[in-house]
C-alpha cells in the first residue's frame, strides 16, 4: 500500500512537472516544423511567468494564464521580427532573447515589487477533478486531478497532430520548414507562416511559464523558468517532432525530475543528478538514430529569403 501511495504521488509530481514542458515543447514543435528553432523559448517562458503573475494580481488566476500566453507570444514576436522578418541568425537571436528576457523580467519585477525580493503570494489556479476518470486507481489522480493547463496540454496533442498532418495549413507550414524554396514556389507565404508559427510557439511557452507561477508555485521569482525553455527544445528532439512523441517525451523528462524528489523523500542514497541527465543522453541517442530514423526539418534554422 505504501508502495502504491509512493507510486501515485510520484506520478502526480511527474505529470505536474511534465505539463509546462509539454506545453512549451508542443509550441516549439509547431515553430520548428515551420523552420524556426527558437532558442529564445526560455525568454517566452519567463515572460509568461511574469505576465501570468501580473495578470493574476490584476484580474485573477485565469486571466493570469491568458496574460502569460500573451506575454510569451510577444517575446516570440520580438524574436521572430529579427530572426524571421529581418533574417538574422536564429540561434544567436534566440540566445539574445533569452538573455535579455531573464534580465528585463527581473528589472520589471524589481521595479514593481522592490529589490529585496518581497515574497509574492498569488492566488493559484485550482485543480479540476474530472468525474469518473479521476477515480482510476493510481493514474486517475495523476492525469485527471490537474489544473486547466494540463487539460490544455492534453487537448493540444491530437489537435496539433490533426493540424500539422491533416490540414492544408499544416502542410504549408511543414513545407516552409522542409523546403522554403519549394513552399515559396507553391505560393506559401514563408515569412508570414514562420512568424505565426513562432508566435504560437511562444504563446504556448508563455502558458507554460504562467503554469509555473500560477499552478506550480503561486509566486514569481527571477529566473524561475530555470531552463524549462531549453529543456523543451530537447523534449522536441526526443519526441521526434511529432505531437504524440513530444507529449510522451515531456512525461519522461517530467518523470526524471519527479524521481529526484521521490528519491529525496525516501532518503534513498541514489545519484539523482544522473537520472536528471538521462533524458538528455537519450535525446542525443535519438538524434544518433538509436530509436529509428529521426531528423529535424530540412530547412530548420535556415534563413528565408537567403
Amino acid at each position, binding site marked *: 500500500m505504501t508502495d502504491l501511495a509512493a507510486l501515485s504521488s510520484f506520478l502526480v509530481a511527474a505529470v505536474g512537472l511534465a505539463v509546462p514542458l509539454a506545453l512549451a515543447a508542443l509550441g516549439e514543435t509547431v515553430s520548428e516544423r515551420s523552420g524556426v528553432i527558437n532558442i529564445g523559448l526560455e525568454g517566452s517562458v519567463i515572460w509568461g511567468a511574469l505576465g501570468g503573475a501580473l495578470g493574476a494580481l490584476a484580474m485573477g488566476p485565469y486571466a493570469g494564464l491568458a496574460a502569460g500566453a500573451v506575454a510569451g507570444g510577444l517575446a516570440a514576436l520580438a524574436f521572430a521580427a529579427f530572426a524571421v522578418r529581418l533574417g538574422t541568425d536564429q540561434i544567436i537571436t534566440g540566445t539574445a532573447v533569452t538573455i*535579455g528576457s531573464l534580465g*528585463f523580467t527581473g528589472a520589471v519585477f524589481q521595479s514593481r515589487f522592490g529589490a529585496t525580493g518581497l515574497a509574492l503570494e498569488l492566488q493559484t489556479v485550482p485543480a479540476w477533478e474530472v468525474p469518473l476518470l479521476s477515480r482510476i486507481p493510481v493514474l486517475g489522480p495523476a492525469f485527471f486531478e490537474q489544473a486547466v493547463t494540463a487539460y490544455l496540454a492534453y487537448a493540444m496533442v491530437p489537435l496539433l497532430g490533426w493540424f500539422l498532418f491533416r490540414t492544408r495549413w499544416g502542410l504549408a507550414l511543414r513545407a516552409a520548414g522542409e523546403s522554403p524554396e519549394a513552399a515559396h514556389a507553391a505560393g506559401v507565404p514563408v515569412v508570414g507562416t514562420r512568424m505565426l508559427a513562432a508566435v504560437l510557439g511562444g504563446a504556448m511557452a508563455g502558458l507554460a511559464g504562467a503554469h509555473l507561477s500560477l499552478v506550480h508555485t503561486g509566486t514569481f521569482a527571477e529566473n524561475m523558468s530555470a531552463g524549462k525553455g531549453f529543456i523543451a527544445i530537447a523534449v522536441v528532439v526526443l519526441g521526434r517532432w511529432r505531437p504524440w512523441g513530444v507529449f510522451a517525451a515531456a512525461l519522461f523528462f517530467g518523470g526524471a525530475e519527479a524521481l529526484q524528489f521521490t528519491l529525496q523523500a525516501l532518503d534513498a542514497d541514489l545519484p539523482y543528478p544522473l537520472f536528471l541527465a538521462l533524458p538528455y543522453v537519450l535525446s542525443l541517442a535519438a538524434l544518433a538514430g538509436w530509436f529509428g530514423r529521426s531528423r529535424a526539418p530540412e530547412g530548420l534554422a535556415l534563413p528565408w529569403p537567403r
Partner: protein
Amino acid sequence: MTPRPLALARLRPELMATITAAAAVLATLAVAAALLALGGHSPGDAFAALARGAFGTWDRFVSFTLVRATPLLLTGLAVAFAFRARVWNIGAEGQLHAGALAGVAVALALPGAGALLVLPVTLLAAAAAGALWASVPAAMKTGMGVGEVITTLLMNFVALFLAQFLVQGPLREARGVFNQTDEIPAAAHLPALLPDTRLHLGFLLGVMIAVGLWLYLARTPGGFRLRAAGASARAAEVSGRFSVTPVIWLSFLVSGAIAGLAGWIQIAGVTHRMYEGLSPGWGYTAIAVALLARLHPLAVVVTAIVFGALSAGGGAMQREAGVPEVWVRGIEALVILAVLTADRIVQGMARRAAHGGAPRRQRSGEAGTAPGGAGVQ
C-alpha cells in the same frame, strides 16, 4: 557573422567591421538609455555608476573588470574560433564545466606535487576534457550529419548534471557540509599577474591564446582552409582542394579545449574549488562577446573586457544609482541584437550595390555567404 562587407564602398573589411560594431554599441546605449528612462531611472546616473564600478580605480579595473573578463575572454575565443568555420558550437558552457571538473579532479589527485608539475598537467587535463566534450557533437556532425546546434546544447545539460553529481558525491568536500569540492592545493593556484591585485595568470593565458588563434587564422594554410570552409563549405569541397571534415573536427576540438580551459582557469585563479553553479552562463554570454568582436580573436580581448566591465559595474550601478543589476543582462542582449541588425543593414546595402536592387530575392549561389543559416541538420 564574419566581417563581410563585400563591395561596399571598397572599405577594408576590418574597418567596416569596426564601424558596424561601434555603431551597434552606440545604438545599444541609446536604446538602453531610453529603456532606463522608461523604467524611471536616470540613464546618466546609471551609466556613470557603471563606469565608476568598472573603471573608477586601478583596482576596480584590474581586480574586477579584468578578472570578470577572463572567463568571457576564453569562452569568447572558443565560440569565435568555431563560428569562423561555421561550426555553431553553443556548447561552450558544457565544455567549460567538463574542463573545470577535469582540472579539479587532477589537482586534488596530486596533493603533494609542485606548481611546475601541477599547473601544466591540470591545464592540459582541462583542455583535453573540453575537447572530449566537444568531440561528441563533432562525431555526430561529421559521421551522421546531425547538426551541432541541438547536440552541443544537449551536451551542456549533461555536463551540468555530471558536475552536480560529482560535487554531491565522488568529489564532495571531506567535511561534507556543502555541495562543493575540497580546496585545491596551493600549488595548483594560478599565480597573481600583478602585485596587490586579484588578477591572475589566466588573463595573460587568454591574451596569448588570442594572439595564437589570430596568427593561425591569418598566417597559416590551415587557418586559410578553416576560413575558406567557413565562407563556403560547398565551394571548398567542390574545388577539390581539401576536405572540410578535418577542418570541422579541428574547430570543434580547439574550441572545446579553450572553453575547457576557461572553467579550470576560473577555479585555479579565483574560486579555488568547484561547486554547483560555477558559471552564470559565460558559455552563452560568450556568443555576444564573439559576435561583437566580429569573430576576430584579437578583438575578442577588447569585447571580453567590455562585457567584464558590464559585469563589474553592474553591482555599482545597483548600489549607487539604484538600478537593478539585472539590467546588465538586458544590455547584453541589446548588444547582440544591434550587431545582428547592423550586419543585415550592411549586407543589404552591399547586395544592392552588387546586384542593383531586389535584395530580398533568393540567390542560391550566395548560400555560403548568407548570414546565419546555422542549419540544424
